[in-house]
């Protein structure tokens, strides 16, 4: 993926942003390549928004630098940066029509009206909302408002599109649809996107690369499969996907439910007791008690049919990771 000739669009160099109360982020180093969707992923309060706002110009950074196409933008106010940001909500100006919302930035750039009209028509088509120019934002649903906000950002042809949990206020079904649309728009336009979410599924579905954050620092950067298959530490392993942790001697074995099999004959050394059996379609989720930890396993119907609650089984660990015990 990281072939050397790929152009670095955004470079964050040892950036720090500390709030007066000591919270914030530090030692952030990140290269984002042209045409890439990179997701900042992490639990609430880990500093994702802080980084995104620093890129957009809404925070002065405390240390380090931010460069776009090799030029520092750290000293510029938001209106001078070649970035465009979409917030979680309240993006649109409710006293302006959709047309006015969309055209405002273009007008400031002194683009002729005929051109503006044409661009708006095209972009509304792109976000599948043609013909809503005359409406006011409160006449649109939450999902439609977010589409308009994304359209407004795209119209300005930014070097970098910044999205801060743009779909988190929407319900699950629309979210998924918006995700797919965004991905398509991104690949059609070849635009570079930094996307913030605390939803790992969203990050996996959308991104070329994921930046996993933990308490103000970067825990791991990699493609979704790299992060899923080779989590750098226990934190990443627990945050991405489902993971069982089994302490054996002074080590912690991390194994995903699909890689943990159960032997109904209980021939192995690692013994456990079946707690629950839940059929989830073509596979079955079984939880077992091993010592004082509860482990989760995905097994086939033919295995689960031979199990009942309270049975003793033994564990067979397939693909796994070994971390030092905490």
């Amino acid at each position, binding site marked *: 993926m990281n072939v050397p000739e790929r152009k670095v669009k955004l470079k964050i160099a040892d950036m720090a942003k500390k709030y007066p109360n000591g919270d914030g982020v530090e030692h952030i180093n990140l290269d984002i390549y042209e045409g890439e969707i990179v997701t900042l992923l992490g639990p609430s309060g880990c500093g994702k928004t802080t980084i995104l706002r620093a890129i957009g110009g809404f925070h002065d950074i405390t240390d380090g630098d931010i460069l776009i196409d090799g030029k520092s933008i750290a000293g510029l106010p938001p209106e001078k940066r070649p970035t465009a940001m979409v917030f979680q909500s309240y993006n649109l100006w*409710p*006293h302006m029509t959709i047309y006015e919302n969309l055209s405002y930035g273009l007008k400031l750039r002194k683009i002729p009206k005929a051109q503006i009209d044409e661009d708006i028509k095209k972009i509304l088509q792109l976000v599948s909302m043609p013909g809503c120019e005359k409406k006011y934002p409160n006449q649109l649903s939450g999902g439609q408002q977010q589409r308009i906000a994304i359209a407004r950002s795209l119209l300005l042809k930014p070097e970098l599109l910044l999205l801060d949990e743009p779909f988190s206020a929407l319900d699950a079904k629309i979210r998924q649809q918006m995700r797919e649309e965004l991905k398509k728009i991104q690949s059609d336009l070849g635009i570079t996107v930094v996307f913030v979410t605390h939803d790992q599924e969203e990050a996996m579905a959308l991104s070329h690369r994921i930046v996993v954050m933990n308490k103000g620092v970067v825990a791991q950067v990699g493609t979704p499969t790299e992060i899923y298959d080779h989590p750098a530490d226990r934190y990443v392993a627990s945050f991405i996907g489902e993971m069982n942790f089994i302490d054996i001697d002074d080590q912690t074995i991390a194994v995903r439910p699909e890689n943990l099999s159960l032997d109904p004959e209980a021939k192995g050394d690692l013994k456990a007791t079946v707690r629950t059996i839940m059929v989830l379609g073509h596979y079955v989720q079984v939880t077992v008690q091993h010592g004082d930890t509860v482990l989760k396993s995905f097994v086939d119907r033919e295995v689960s049919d031979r199990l009942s609650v309270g049975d003793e089984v033994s564990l067979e660990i397939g693909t796994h990771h070994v971390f030092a015990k905490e």
Partner: protein
Amino acid sequence: MFKYMNPKRFYHAVGRKKFWEFILLAVFIIFFYGPLLNMLLLAFSNSYEYPHVFAQAWGTKWWAYVFQQKSLVSSIAQSFIIAIATTAISMLFCIPAAYSIARFKYPGRKGFMLSFLLTNAFPKLGIYTSIAVLFYKYGLMGTYAGVIIIHMINSMMFMVWLPASAFRSVHRQQEEAARDVGAGPVRTFFKVTFPMALPGIAVATLYTFLGSMEEAQGTMLVGLGKIQTMPVAMYGIVLDSSAVQIGAVFAILLIIPSAVMIFAMRRYIGPEAISGGFKMK
């Protein structure tokens, strides 16, 4: 038909709660609109004597009388000049103050806000008298400036608090989005923040204007009788005239600007507008 007007039937037809609500509303309407109606009748009666309900002769005699009095006509003009000046100047001072309260955190912000409450919390006459002492020192007694300052003191609380809450209801992201598409801070204020807070500001402006139109106490005291606004002139007329109709005509003249402004701004007025302007769902 008439048997349904029987209060007992009415009571049972609409239920107890509705019945008392209706009675309360009726009483309220009589109290509120009764005097207004009476005033209207008075203003258009050429002659009227006390115990009667209706006038002996109808006409616009007293309207003609009022508009022939030079001092009365000039008082109308003075009222408007002072009300417009008061409104404009308090907007100039109070809107930036309101914005700073809404947007910036600085030490003493709470105290600053409360200080506006103080002007409305103490007995007016006490404040006016102590202000008068100061005004004598600076030669502001009997001047337009002095009267305008008095009117501004009265309206400051509304003029700061209402716009401040309106500004606060404008989400930061909405301002930031404007910066993001390329507007500088000043342009952002005039294109996004101000128009979105406009309903709250309009209500405050209306309050200030109407408050200034009807202020009499402070104007009399500080204006030393030299500044004759409509309410001040009205005091004089009502006190030394035998014709109650003049008072009625004046009262209607005073109501007209209020009614016109409330009608013009009806879209913005209401509990919702006061608590915070445009909102997004």
